[in-house]
């Protein structure tokens, strides 16, 4: 086949020149010149360099073969060779080109050699980070495009176009390839030819593990898993088929590893469908170019995709698969022209000399034919590591804020400190990213300078000369001896390291530097040491192990403690190496908690005694006569105290009488005195505070403030005070007094004059008692005396109400008047009766008026001494006898009025002499009653009779 173009590959071309080709023409064909193939005849002398871009194909001349029959074959590859050939040769990128978050459309021009100029490079909105060195531009560009999901091509005029596939190629297919179908409608063309399809799952992959190493040799891994819905295959036991593909790539940074893994997986998640069509239609490139997508449909071979629906040119609705045209091979027939452009830009027309070809056009869709694999050359890049190390690591910055420190127990039993140092990965000194780091080196030593201020107490043990000899300064008078550097190596991918075996509380300094990767031909470069970072090792905070209980032996008022410096869990002489002493504590009960109050003494116990197996022994005075329990606590040189040992009980031996001939003591502080008598001027329980005192004057009791509460004098007088203040009772020769909480004297019974003053309510019985007198029932209210009887709901009260005296019967609950009432004010005096509805009284005013309220009535039962008789009776006839109902002791003075009623007469009765108009007359009177005479008829008689005698 004359011309083969391959997606992202070099392709190839071959033209055979007839034997009668002039030698001058043959001689003008210089290698790396360009050949162009056009449909139809063109004149290169006119068209010139425009043919490079407008031609159907432009290639680079690389080979010549003179055949035995005199014909000459010239051949070459496509324009992509200017980015790098199939062997990776070309304008190899020798200088490390680092792209950091570089936009796609600006990244690619940086990788182009002089032989290819930027064409149309689209901004696809993706940024790339990576570095390239010692790879061809084609490898680098192809790598970026694959990673970014983009495409590229080199045009015939030596320009590079790149962008998304839709930018470069036809992604809405216009061509259909189907078995035994051909045709053309207004939209699409179905190619005529012999179709063969290949489908296999040989490359089917469910997972990709990508092992990548970048240009500096750092390794990264990436992985990608197939979507579950895409894996429709099962193994013999019904499990989803598992096909993990291991992919190794160099030149892939960790940031791109996952994307590269997904990219690789996407290639293999389904069947591998490829299609070869041998078509008799030569001018296929007029309809479709390599890279364009086309519809492929072969339902009987299951090459279909129901997601697509296309009306095919042969009048059928089809569901084709959308595949990319990867290769086209076509013959140069006699309708085409071939031109050659030499290195100087001169054009030679070869149309008259080339041998036209016949045959079919072959297209490959969805895969690459194996015969052209070498022409592809587009496999993943394999950039070798750089051979020259020109980068120098910059100073490593510490992150002191993240330093961590702690202490731990070393194997020897000593407490040691450790510090975790933290730093950041540096760039190179040329500000480039450090991609070839190998390891870090850290060195550290004890520092001369204490981190905390020096005290005078610390300086007191030195002379000024000694301080000066030690390098002391005004700011740091005490300086420690400087330690030797200790070195530590840390892998480059670590940014933390722990330094062990440090002395607690000691100041240290540390420095770090980065070292990159070297080789036999290029030694590693080490960066400068960083400035020292100073830190103080953590103080010892680890307490010693809990010691075993001590052995205790008793002696006279003392005990001997002996400890074999062993641990509570067993063994002897195995306490911590930094042991300083043992604290001995004692108390009267075994479960006591050691404290400063229980400490008895200390026993020296050092690592030397442990090492020499010398027990710690000491004797302590003990005065207690009851069993004493002892515990020991181990204390290390940093002052850390262990937990106390278990208690051991022992009692010191007493001093018996035989050992005492005469005892003089200033005080007895404990125990029981069992003597039958005591002779003393003063016996008291304490010198001050709450106490009792007995002496010749009597017994006195004092409270905690030394207030004399009880005083029983031997003379017979006494005073009792329940409290010095507040609510209290006092009894003494003055009388009896009670005080409320605020100290006010509420009750005072004076012995001097018998006066009794009482504040509050005085009640003759309980509130439940029916009959009682309550004086001042409401102390804060009116002065009042209530008299209660035998359970009535009322009582009698006497009250001074605003200066007015009231004595009345009133209800218990509401104090509303309900009966007799005497009411004195400054202007009047009332005697009468009142309840909530009625009131009757006689009132004497200060105006000498006498007022009455109520109505007159006879007594309920008339007696001879009733003062008044009032009544209304009916009369009839001419007279009526009115009887008082009793024989009065004196004559009554009756007043009578009469009123005729129904049946009566209104005519006055004229009686006596003269003319007197009277309606009635008392016609008779006695001590028991009187007679009223009146005109005949019915009448009402009103009577009012008062006893006058």
């Amino acid at each position: 086949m004359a011309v083969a173009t391959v997606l992202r590959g070099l392709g190839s071309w071959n033209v055979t020149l007839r034997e009668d080709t002039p030698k001058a023409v043959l001689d003008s064909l210089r290698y790396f010149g360009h050949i162009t193939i056009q449909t139809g005849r063109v004149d290169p002398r006119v068209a010139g360099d425009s043919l490079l871009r407008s031609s159907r194909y432009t290639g680079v001349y690389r080979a010549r073969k003179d055949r035995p029959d005199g014909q000459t074959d010239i051949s070459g590859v496509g324009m992509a060779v200017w980015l790098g050939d199939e062997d990776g040769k070309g304008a190899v990128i020798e200088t490390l080109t680092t792209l950091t978050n570089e936009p796609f459309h600006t990244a690619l021009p940086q990788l182009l050699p002089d032989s290819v100029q930027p064409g149309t490079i689209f901004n696809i909105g993706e940024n790339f980070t990576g570095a390239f060195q010692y790879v061809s531009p084609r490898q680098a560009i192809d790598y970026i495009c694959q990673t970014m999901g983009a495409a590229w091509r080199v045009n015939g005029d030596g320009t590079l176009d790149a962008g998304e596939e839709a930018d470069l190629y036809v992604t809405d297919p216009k061509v259909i390839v189907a078995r035994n179908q051909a045709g053309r409608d207004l939209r699409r063309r179905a190619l005529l030819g012999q179709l063969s399809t290949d489908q296999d799952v040989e490359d089917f992959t469910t997972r990709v593990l990508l092992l990548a190493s970048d240009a500096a040799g750092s390794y990264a891994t990436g992985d990608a898993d197939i979507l579950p819905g895409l894996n429709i295959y099962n193994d013999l036991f019904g499990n989803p088929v598992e096909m993990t593909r291991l992919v190794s790539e160099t030149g892939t940074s960790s940031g791109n590893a996952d994307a590269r893994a997904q990219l690789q997986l996407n290639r293999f998640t389904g069947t591998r469908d490829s299609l070869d069509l041998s078509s008799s239609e030569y001018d296929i490139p007029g309809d479709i170019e390599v890279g364009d997508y086309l519809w492929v449909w072969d339902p009987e071979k299951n090459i279909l995709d129901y997601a697509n629906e296309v009306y095919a040119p042969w009048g059928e609705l089809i569901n084709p698969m959308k595949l990319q045209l990867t290769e086209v091979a076509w013959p140069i027939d006699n309708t085409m022209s071939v031109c050659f452009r030499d290195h100087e830009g001169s054009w030679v027309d070869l149309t008259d000399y080339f041998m036209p070809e016949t045959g079919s056009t072959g297209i490959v869709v969805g895969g690459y034919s194996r015969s052209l694999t070498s022409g592809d050359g587009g496999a993943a890049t394999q950039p070798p590591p750089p051979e020259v190390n020109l980068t120098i690591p910059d100073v490593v910055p510490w992150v002191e804020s993240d330093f961590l420190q702690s202490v731990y127990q070393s194997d020897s039993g000593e407490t040691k400190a450790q510090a975790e140092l933290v730093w950041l990965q540096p760039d190179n000194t040329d500000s480039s990213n450090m991609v070839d780091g190998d390891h870090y080196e850290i060195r550290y030593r004890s520092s001369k300078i204490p981190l905390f201020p020096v005290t005078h107490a610390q300086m007191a043990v030195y002379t000024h000369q000694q301080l000066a000899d030690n390098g002391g300064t005004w700011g740091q008078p005490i300086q420690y001896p400087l330690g030797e550097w200790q070195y530590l190596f840390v892998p480059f991918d670590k940014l933390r390291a722990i330094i062990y075996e440090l002395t607690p509380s000691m100041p240290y300094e540390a420095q770090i530097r980065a070292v990159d990767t070297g080789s036999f031909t290029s030694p590693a470069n080490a960066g400068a040491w960083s400035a020292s970072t100073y830190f103080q090792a953590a103080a010892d905070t680890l307490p010693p192990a809990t010691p075993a209980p001590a052995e205790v032996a008793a002696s006279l008022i003392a005990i001997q403690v002996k400890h074999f410096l062993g641990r509570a869990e067993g063994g002897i002489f195995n306490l911590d190496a930094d042991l300083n002493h043992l604290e001995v504590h004692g108390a009267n009960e075994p479960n006591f908690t050691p404290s400063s109050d229980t400490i008895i003494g200390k026993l020296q116990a050092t690592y030397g005694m442990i090492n020499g197996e010398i027990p710690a022994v000491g004797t302590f005075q003990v005065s207690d006569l009851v069993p004493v329990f002892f515990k020991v606590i181990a204390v290390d040189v940093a002052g850390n105290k262990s937990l106390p040992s278990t208690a051991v009980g022992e009692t010191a031996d007493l001093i018996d009488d035989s050992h005492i001939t005469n005892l003089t003591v200033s005080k007895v502080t404990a125990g029981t005195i069992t003597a039958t008598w005591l002779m003393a001027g003063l016996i008291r329980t304490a010198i001050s505070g709450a106490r009792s005192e007995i002496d010749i004057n009597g017994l006195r009791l004092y409270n905690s403030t030394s207030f004399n509460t009880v005083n029983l004098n031997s003379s017979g007088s006494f005073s009792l005070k329940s409290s010095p203040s507040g609510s209290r009772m006092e009894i003494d020769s003055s009388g009896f007094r009670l005080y409320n909480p605020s100290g006010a004297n509420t009750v005072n019974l004076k012995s001097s004059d018998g006066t009794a003053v009482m504040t509050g309510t005085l009640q003759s019985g309980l509130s439940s008692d029916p009959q009682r007198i309550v004086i001042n029932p409401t102390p804060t209210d009116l002065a009042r005396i209530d008299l209660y009887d035998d359970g009535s709901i009322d009582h009698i009260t006497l009250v001074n109400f605003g200066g007015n005296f009231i004595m009345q019967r009133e209800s218990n609950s509401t104090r509303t008047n309900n009966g007799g009432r005497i009411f004195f004010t400054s202007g009047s005096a009332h005697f009468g009766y009142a309840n909530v509805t009625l009131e009757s009284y006689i009132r004497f005013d200060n105006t000498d008026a006498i007022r009455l309220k109520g109505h007159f009535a006879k007594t309920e039962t008339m007696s001879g001494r009733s003062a008044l008789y009032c009544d209304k009776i009916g009369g009839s006839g001419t007279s009526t006898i009115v009887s008082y109902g009793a024989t009065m002791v004196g004559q009554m003075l009756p007043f009578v009025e009469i009123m005729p009623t129904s049946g009566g007469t209104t005519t006055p009765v004229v009686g006596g002499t003269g003319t007197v108009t009277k309606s009635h007359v008392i016609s008779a009177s006695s001590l028991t009653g009187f007679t009223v005479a009146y005109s005949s008829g019915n009448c009402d008689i009103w009577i009012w009779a008062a006893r006058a005698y």
Partner: protein
Amino acid sequence: MAVPTFQMGRLVLREDFTAADGVAIDGSQALSLSGQESMPRWTAEGIARQREDFLSMLDKFVPVIFSGKTYLNGFYKVISVQGDVNDFIPENLKVFAWSLGLWKLGTQSSMDIESRLSGAEARSNNFSSTGERTHAPAIGHNAYWAGSSIPSSIVRASEDGNITVYRDVAFTVHPRWAISPEQYGLGRVRIEDANFERAGMNISMDPEAWTLSNGLVRVVPNAPGGTITFSAWDSGAWVSRNWDILVGSGPAVSLGAFDYCTIIRNEFEMVTLRMIKSTAIGRVMLDVTLRRGSRIVELFVQTTTSTTVKVVMSAATAVSQLPGYVVTTADDGDGNRATVGAAKTFTADLVNGGISRSGTLEFDAYIGLAIGGGSAVSGETAADLFEQYIGMPTETVRGVTR
């Protein structure tokens, strides 16, 4: 004496005395035939027509029926066709001498017909239709197999006899059935050009004198009355209605008579006719497709530039609009209802009885007749016809060994 003939698919050729028979090493049975088509049995036009059809037979699956050598009847695949055209100028005689090679697939006793159905379960549509996948084997078939269950079916009376249409055929099933070679052509789709049934493709056709029929539906061009006449077989007779296809915006005009016509697919189970109309803005392409057992004819219009395409009844008839189609609001004089629909969104012309789409380069539609009108049985209603259009699979027939 009548010249013996044999029928290869649609094509009737002269049966010669000799039929070279043989079996290849792989067991395949090949049959080589030769003969000639000549005057006066054929006219000069007839010979040219025979030649075109003959040369289109390559790679076809065909029933071959001999009038003499009936023992050779069976299903064959055409593996080679070749011919010589002899024109005797002075005598004005034409002879087309042919030879062909056949690969015998078998007979109804030894093989099945497998209908390989392809296409989506429901073609892409704007009406949320799930489609109904139908399949109609030839009249007289038996032993129908379509998976684990037998699909429901309806029987449609056609000009060739009753044809069974299976409904809701399972999506992944390729039905197999049996039939004799003699009956295989019953109910087939046929395209007649000047009253001759054509077997070829990409052949010369008179754009104004063709008939496309499957025995249920018949379509003929009808320039004076519109664009096409759609007829349906109803109660033993054809009932017809003229339809117009209009293209253009401001306003759309009837395509009228087409300039060119050819056959782009010609199988017993499906025929597609392609017509080209030259217009001021380029060309309009109309594909007319008819399938075996189908009550509808499918239309596909392509235009050069974006414009309005409309399919409407020539005689204004009120229609009602439903999702995907319109249907006449009342039964016609024969008790049927005409319907037209499309898979994609359209604008209904409720007054004239049609649908249109503006601003389009392509327009798919179908025309049908709901036999029984408002009382159509299940499978024959306008709604059923729409679902059958949406779910219509493409069928490719193969002879497969049992």
